[in-house]
């Protein structure tokens, strides 16, 4: 389990000019470092816990894929929505744990594959489970199950609460029958078939030429002799008289004459060769036959279908079927004279009918014409506890709060009193807002309101000379600030109260997605991409194929998920009758490489096969090759139509060197999703599933996070492994990624340090995964999506091994460490010099910021970059920035090249106090 080895004190970013008494209430800032995690899931759980405790992030929703019920088939996807602003119990940071679903009552009458629906009257729940194993005894209770659907169960309460026993029952069958005496019929709405003495359509057994009594249409009153030597008295009765049947079973159904008729549970034994009581005297007879009988089983509960029952009919709740017998009853003889010239002999055939006889656990009161349901019964499970382990697969949607984002939706207005007025500038005192946890701050662009003062809709244009007095306490930090208001001269007298707030909501969201114990992806975007249902938006090209996941950090997820096979290419098409030719054929011992064509010889789909669609080579159930259709080869041959039968050229970046099995076929279809490749360390955010496998104990994870009033930093690393062993990770040809980080920040003015909260107010994301460095704009005032690189983006990089610069394609990504079109590189990730002539070293903030539309002179001041060899990881670096009176402290983190070389990022951590 993780342990906290360091927990930095809350520290202040805003300069304290007078006294550091009560400094913590001015704090705009907190940094936390923890270490000792074996899994990234535990790590991100604690990070999220920290972030929610610090009011940096609010958890919008959590979905957990439940894997503990069946490790082999983790099917369930079970969102558990947290209430907004829920502050979790600090003593139980286990909110990413799976529920423990233990079987409370195994119930009876289930079969493997039964889909059970939550069955509590009035409960707002539609959770379903599937039975995966039943007891082999007659009771057939549930031994294991999986949660199937994404119900909305427990949507508003803390999942750690009580009362989580859910009772599940078998879903009613789609077929049912009415009791109609002899006639067999279906009710398509629901229910199984239960018919009393209904006719079976089967014909009987040839008995030879022995004469017998005249057959009658029903067995009531029939006297018939079974041939000697019949094997089973249940199937063969040598005599049958009406006196053996219970009174009242006349006519064509055994309960119709004296309805209601009470059936007792006693079974009268049938003894071969005897008369009188050879037939079951009590029970329910059905003619549903073997095929339907498989859906009715011992232990099933029998119920009356509401509405159709006789008002006096009654089946006690919980009545179970306790026995099932299949009986073929001989009901008479059919004589048939042979055809031919002259007198012919007569053959006699038995007329038999099959009946299924059910015995129930309790007495019933039913009537002819009643409808019945049957289902498994009694299964319940408990889920009022959670696992001690963090879930392996989950998605957490979070939203930045005003604590780290001035333009967040949950900001509170800041109020202040006018101290003095000087032209367009006003000096404020007693600045405060409703939060007790950190200092109120007035940002540029805030709207000033006060009913008694004519502010003419003025907004804050500039913040100058922020001063915090030493008298700080409680929630009313006494702060002196000069606020410039252009074009508006306030006439407010000293002491007037003003209110400052933003009239815009520019919140952004982060999504954390664990794909396993050791694979974590992180996304940044808005509520449009990351909705409350925990789904992540996808990015598509003109064919509709998914090229990327919106706002994902790291490289593009490389594993395409093809659309389902269907007759229409809207859903994907499997082309079994496809032949690749020219330099490849689908056959044994064939190698595909280079530019390849394939031919569609037969095609029945409706939608045209388009450039951009993915071609996948299937063999032995696995996808062996994925590539993209570049074009259809023209001219088309006679009979070919665009997008149908014909030949296609696939992209020339195909490299497939393994043999193509002879059983291969090709699938063509849209990419409907993409997955992170756990073999590629540059995908996802932390991706070490392959490397640590079963031995994470050697690679404990650490994280460091900083929250300021303008953004957050999150970095994950593994001790000092990055320094000792990553000699060749920089060439990206080994599967090492020891240090991943991201920064999301609103930039600050390069001269004043003021946060940019006006204009298009972009939010920048810089991230490093697998020693690749990317940047994108999370959102802008009027842009509600994260930005992305062009598919043809290329950048120049220096290759450490060859000593040469080279062009590296970065499709759909914008490098942070190289110039590309309309994007300045802002990081230097190679070996570098930071020492100046006077034995100091330079740490630079990230500047040359650009969005697709604008260039900014602002900086990202939460991290500084310097050379790896001038400061060691975990060192504190004191920096004076923006003419602040107090030095800032930055924490140096791991360098990106072996042996403390290359780039070292340092992250804002504290202010310096001697």
């Amino acid at each position, binding site marked *: 389990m993780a342990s906290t080895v360091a927990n930095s004190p809350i520290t202040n970013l805003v300069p304290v000019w007078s006294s550091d008494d009560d400094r913590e209430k001015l704090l705009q800032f907190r940094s936390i470092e923890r270490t000792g995690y074996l899994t990234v899931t535990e790590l991100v759980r604690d990070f999220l816990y920290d972030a929610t405790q610090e009011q940096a992030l609010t958890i919008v929703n959590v979905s957990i894929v439940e894997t503990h019920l069946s490790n082999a088939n983790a099917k369930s996807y079970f969102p558990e929505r947290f209430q907004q602003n829920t502050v979790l119990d600090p003593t139980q940071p286990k909110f990413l744990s799976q529920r423990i679903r233990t079987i409370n009552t195994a119930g009876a009458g289930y079969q493997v594959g039964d889909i059970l629906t939550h069955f509590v009257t009035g409960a707002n729940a539609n959770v379903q489970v599937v039975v995966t194993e039943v007891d082999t005894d007659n009771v057939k209770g549930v031994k294991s199950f999986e949660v199937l659907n994404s119900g909305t169960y427990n949507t508003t309460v803390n999942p750690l609460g009580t009362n989580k026993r859910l009772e599940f029952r078998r879903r009613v069958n789609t077929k049912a029958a009415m009791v109609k005496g002899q006639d067999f019929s279906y009710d398509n709405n629901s229910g199984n078939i239960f018919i009393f003495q209904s006719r079976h359509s089967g014909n009987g057994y040839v008995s030879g030429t022995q004469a017998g009594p005249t057959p009658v249409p029903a067995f009531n009153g029939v006297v018939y002799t079974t041939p000697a030597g019949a094997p089973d008295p249940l199937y063969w009765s040598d005599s049958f008289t009406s006196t053996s049947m219970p009174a009242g079973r006349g006519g064509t159904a055994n309960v119709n004459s004296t309805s209601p008729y009470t059936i007792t549970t006693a079974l009268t034994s049938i003894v071969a060769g005897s008369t009188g009581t050879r037939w079951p005297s009590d029970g329910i007879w059905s003619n549903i036959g073997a095929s339907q009988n498989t859906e009715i089983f011992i232990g099933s509960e029998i119920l009356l279908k509401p509405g159709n029952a006789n008002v006096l009919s009654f089946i006690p709740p919980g009545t179970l079927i306790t026995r099932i017998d299949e009986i073929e009853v001989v009901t008479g003889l059919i004589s048939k004279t042979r055809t031919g010239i002259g007198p012919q002999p007569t053959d006699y055939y038995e007329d038999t009918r099959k009946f299924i006889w059910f015995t129930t656990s309790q007495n019933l009161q039913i009537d002819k014409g009643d409808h019945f349901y049957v289902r498994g019964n009694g299964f319940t499970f408990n889920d009022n506890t959670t696992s001690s382990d963090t879930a392996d697969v989950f998605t957490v949607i979070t939203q930045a709060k005003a604590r780290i984002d001035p333009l967040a939706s949950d900001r509170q207005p800041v109020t202040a009193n006018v101290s003095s007025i000087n032209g367009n500038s006003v000096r404020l005192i007693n600045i405060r807002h409703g939060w007790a946890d950190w200092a109120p701050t007035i940002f540029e662009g805030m709207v000033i309101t006060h009913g008694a003062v004519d502010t003419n809709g003025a907004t804050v244009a500039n913040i100058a000379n922020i001063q915090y007095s030493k008298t700080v306490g409680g929630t009313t930090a006494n702060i002196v600030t000069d606020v410039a208001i252009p074009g508006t001269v306030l006439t407010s007298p000293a002491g007037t109260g003003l209110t400052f707030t933003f009239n815009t909501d520019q919140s952004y969201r982060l999504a954390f997605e664990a794909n396993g114990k050791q694979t974590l992806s992180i996304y940044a975007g808005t509520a449009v991409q990351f909705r409350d249902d925990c789904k992540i938006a996808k990015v598509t090209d003109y064919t509709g194929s998914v090229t990327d996941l919106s706002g994902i950090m790291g490289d593009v997820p490389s594993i395409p998920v093809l659309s389902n096979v269907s007759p229409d290419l809207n859903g994907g098409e499997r082309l079994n009758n496809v032949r690749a030719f020219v330099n490849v054929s689908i056959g044994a011992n064939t190698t595909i490489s280079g530019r390849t064509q394939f031919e569609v010889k037969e095609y029945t789909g409706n939608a045209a096969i388009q450039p951009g669609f993915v071609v996948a080579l299937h063999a032995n159930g696995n996808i062996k090759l994925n590539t993209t259709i570049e074009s259809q080869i023209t001219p088309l041959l006679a009979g070919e139509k665009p997008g149908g039968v014909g030949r296609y050229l696939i992209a020339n970046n195909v490299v497939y060197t393994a043999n193509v099995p002879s059983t291969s076929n090709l699938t063509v279809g849209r990419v409907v999703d993409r997955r992170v490749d756990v073999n590629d360390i540059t995908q996802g955010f932390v991706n070490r599933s392959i490397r640590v496998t079963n031995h994470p104990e050697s690679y404990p994870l650490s994280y460091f996070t900083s929250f300021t009033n303008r953004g957050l930093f999150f970095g994950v690393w593994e001790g000092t492994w990055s320094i000792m062993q990553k000699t060749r990770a920089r060439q990206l040809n080994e599967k090492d990624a020891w240090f991943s980080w991201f920064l999301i920040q609103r930039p600050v003015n390069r001269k004043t340090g003021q946060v940019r909260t006006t204009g298009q107010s972009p939010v920048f994301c810089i991230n490093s995964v697998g020693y690749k460095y990317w940047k994108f704009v999370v959102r802008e005032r009027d842009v509600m999506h994260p930005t992305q690189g062009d598919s043809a983006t290329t950048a120049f990089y220096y290759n450490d091994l060859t000593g040469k610069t080279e062009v590296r394609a970065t499709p759909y990504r914008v490098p942070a460490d190289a110039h590309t079109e309309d994007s300045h*590189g802002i990081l230097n990730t190679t*070996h570098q010099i*930071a020492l100046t*002539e006077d034995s100091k070293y*330079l740490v630079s903030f990230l500047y040359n910021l650009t969005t697709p539309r604008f*260039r900014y002179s602002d900086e990202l001041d939460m991290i500084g970059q310097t050379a790896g060899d001038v400061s060691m990881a975990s060192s504190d670096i004191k920096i004076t920035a923006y003419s602040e009176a107090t030095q800032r402290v930055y924490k140096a983190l791991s360098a990106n090249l072996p042996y403390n070389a290359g780039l070292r990022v340092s992250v804002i951590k504290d202010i310096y106090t001697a």
Partner: protein
Amino acid sequence: MAFTYYIKNGFSNIRQLVTSIANDLTSVATSANGVQYFQHVYGSFSAGSSQLVFPKGTRYPEGNVLIFESKLAVDPMANVNTVTLAGGGTINAAWRLAFVLHDDQTLTVHAGTRLTLPGVEQTDPTLRGNLVFLTNRATDPNLLEFREPAGCMNVSPWSQYDPYKYKIFGNVAAASISTLRTNPAVLPGPNVQIPNEVFISRLSSSGAESAYPMNYSLTMSSRGMVLAVWEDNQEEIPETQLGSGGWGLQSLSSTDLSNVYGNSPVRWFAIQRAVDRETGHVRGGYRLRGNVAYSTGGVLNEKSRCPVFCVFGTSNPNEYRKFVVRENDVLVPSPKRPAAVNTVDSPAILNPLQQQSVTEQGEFVVTFLNNLSTSRFRYGDEMDLIGTVGAEVVGGGTNIEVKVYQDGYTRTYTAVYANRQYGNGMRIMVLTKADYRDEDKNTGLVTSNVSVVLDDIIYPAP
């Protein structure tokens, strides 16, 4: 001190071009405010003469080398610390600039010091004008070879050399060694068919020189110089070589970064001592030396290595290079490094690609070259003689006026042509006016001398 800017047009061959540049470099005329920026230290050139440099018929390097040395007006360290070397010659703190004509179409430019670009100070006349070549640093004499000269402003190494012929000792008969040593004709040379190996190649204009006249812009200031050379109509010169079919669609639509843009219609270099990013004071000037002049012991107060940075470029994004011409204690040029790509201990100092320069307010941002470093030290300084900007926000030849550093005046930066076809990509802005007075405003002739007198702001006399 002085600040002089020339822009001149219409040169059809390299001899005319270099002759004019040489005159401007060494002029003491009114156009140069009576100040001489460079002194001519080697080559067939006489200041003020209209006689063309590089006599016809001579072959490289003999007779076709022109070397100039920075003077105080362009280099605050120029006249300090001159030391006579035992065995001949002198060494000082100045830097040098050499123009070498290889054939009628090919010019290379070199920056260095007295050690690498020896001139009249050499007592041995046979060494004057002999560019000093680098070797391959082999320790086996049989493998020791010459490479190109140090400080050559090219982006591809010289490839015109014969490993056998240009080996210094190995595999050469002993009797031939002395001949090889003294006969520079056998030293390596550039492949004149590869524009990236030289500074200017007129090969594509052979026989049609007047259809592609050359122009240049020369800025000389108290801290360095900028020279940019371009051909007319360059914005429409195709990025790839024209086929016999004329203007092919392929050449017009190509945006392949690896293509050479019109075989380099724009070439430029800047050599300057860096300035402080806050104050604009030049490193090596007395303001950063505690206001102590050299003559009063300032040289002893100079703690900085005072690197001289050289950056130069063609039109290809990958083909910008930089090197340190010299430092106070490093007397030879450093190896060339990419200027637009982060490499080992050498950060990128400019972005040559299509770029975003417009702010939300509709202004555009011009970036001075920064992130300067030598192989030993990082400098927070900037090169203020040129800036870079997105090409489409300002047209070639446009002047913009800015106030920077703590200047008490407005500077003028003039846009040079873009590095991509049709005015795309990156554009450099060259400093063309600084601290002009009212009476100087009318001297801004387009084709000739825009001369201004710069008061003692950036660099004072020692």
